[in-house]
């Protein structure tokens, strides 16, 4: 079975149920948006899939069980993620960031030598994320939007098959959002993409399917139109979003 399959996933922090029995199917090639009010458990869901949060139930990707594996072992199975606050290696250059992301399977001899040329997959990623011109700049000096792109580039060279992106367009300009959305569409040809997002406009334009989370559970699922038409979603999430926009 290909794609991401989550069954009865439960994450409990000191008695507080952050994710309570979630079932989720993201078929290969989907661009799935996961939305929900603050504290709904979206990030915790990704944390559980990637091995950061202890969880019960079952998560399989391309047929392999992920739960119980260590974080770096899950990453090696092709599961890549970004973080809500971008977490690039600030003191290293863009190129170095990408080169490290491309290298977990390098042998000791390669590691102990200097990088003599830019690996082809890194070069391709640099072009895809449009950071070729700043490749020798420390990642810490990049504007926020470019940092987010760098993170996506790191997933590309890491050879992730499943992209789990936690609020990738937060803090981006409109132009950057459009570019990101187009990139996600391109990616979905060869990857499975899960995006956590609050931005409804971005969602309407780029989501293929949507899952709505609320209070650690799944409230609704379907196409953008179906989800928007769901009265429970309007009550819980869209109502919240409207309030948030007014505030």
């Amino acid at each position, binding site marked *: 079975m290909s794609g991401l399959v989550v069954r009865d996933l439960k994450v409990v922090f000191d008695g507080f149920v952050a994710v309570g029995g979630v079932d989720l199917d993201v078929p290969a090639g989907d661009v799935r948006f996961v939305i929900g009010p603050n504290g709904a458990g979206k990030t915790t869901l990704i944390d559980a899939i990637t091995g950061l949060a202890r969880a019960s139930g079952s998560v399989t990707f391309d047929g392999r069980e992920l739960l119980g594996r260590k974080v770096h072992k899950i990453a090696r199975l092709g599961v890549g993620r970004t973080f809500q606050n971008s977490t690039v290696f600030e003191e290293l250059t863009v190129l170095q960031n990408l080169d*490290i992301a491309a290298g977990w399977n390098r042998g000791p001899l390669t590691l102990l030598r200097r990088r003599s040329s830019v690996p082809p997959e890194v070069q391709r990623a640099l072009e895809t994320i449009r950071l070729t011109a700043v490749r020798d700049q420390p990642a810490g000096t990049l504007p926020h939007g470019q940092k987010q792109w760098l993170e996506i580039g790191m997933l590309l060279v890491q050879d992730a098959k499943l992209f789990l992106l936690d609020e990738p367009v937060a803090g981006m300009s409109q132009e950057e959002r459009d570019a990101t959305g187009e990139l996600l569409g391109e990616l979905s040809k060869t990857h499975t993409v899960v995006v956590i997002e609050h931005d409804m406009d971005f969602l309407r334009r780029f989501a293929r399917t949507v899952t709505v989370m609320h209070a650690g559970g799944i409230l609704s699922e379907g196409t953008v139109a179906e989800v928007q038409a769901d009265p429970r979603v309007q009550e819980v999430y869209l109502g919240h979003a409207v309030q948030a926009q007014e505030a």
Partner: protein
Amino acid sequence: MTTLQDPPIAPSAAGRSARRRFGPGTGSRAAAGFAVAAVVLFAVAPVVLGDFRLGLLAKYLCLAIVAVGIGLAWGRGGMLTLGQGVFFGLGGYAMAMHLKLADAGPGQLPDFMQLYGQLDALPWWWRPFTSPAFALAATVLLPMLVALPLGLLIFRRRVRGAYFAILSQALCAAFAIFLIGQQGTTGGTNGLTDIQGFFGYDLNDPINRRMIYFIVAAVLLAVLGVAWQLMRSRYGELLVAVRDGEERVRFLGYDPANVKLVAYVVAAGMAGLAGALFVPAVGIISPAMIGVVPSIEFVIGVAVGGRASLVGPALGAIAVAWARTALSERLPSAWTYFEGLLFILPVVFLPGGLASLTVFLRRRSGKKASA
């Protein structure tokens, strides 16, 4: 904010300085640096300094070798290795044991064992050190073999930061206490003293003492070469990534414990090598030289010189050791306070150490020029 469509074309000043710090540091520049260091160490110092001062410098260079390892583990790897005394001691004792046995002559017990001990035969764990090859290998491999399981345990369990530093210190204290307790077989508080010869060379002969200096200087250069290659390699970049984002690195498929382990074990080997050279250079190794206080002192030099740079730690270690000698000759009581200041000042005001001063000055002059 720059849009994705038109990113800045020219790399910024910060970009250039980052490349200077992490990037190639072009091979020819490094070669020039090594050439200058070699000239200073092999041509200038032996001519300018008398036998006594050159002997002191040999001792400082030993401390510099420890410092290079700390620079790698702490500066690049973020592990505050406050316990290098253990590895320095292992290397030092391994060497001193062999030299004591050689001094005593075949079949004889070292002098201190005859003095205190009710021993009639060499303890079993002393015996292999009769072999020069075993002893030499042990000076480096023993510390590394101790560091390997220790590091594995520490890094797998994700012991970090202050906990790691305190654990390192505790190990140092335990090691020193152990040595003191085993008076009959380790020389106790006195340590292994009065070392007369070095692989057949009489250490009382000034010529041979000069030779020791040259060996120490050559080893320091070699150790710097190893550190240089590690820092510029892909591994070096990965190590910095682990230092700055250990959790993030996991999500890229690496086990950061293994990455840290390499730097930790290499630093331990360097400390062991330094301890081994310290013995013929100074003629003694004792618990007082490897315990908690000396372990902290190793780190002070590194902090002063700049922990993340290549030569900063070595220069800092030499400078601090020199200042210590100069100051404690004149004002013995003032040194302790001064040393405390030396540790605090760079940590608070100049986290990059003296090495960062050059970057800072260069940046300022650059600003003036462009203004």
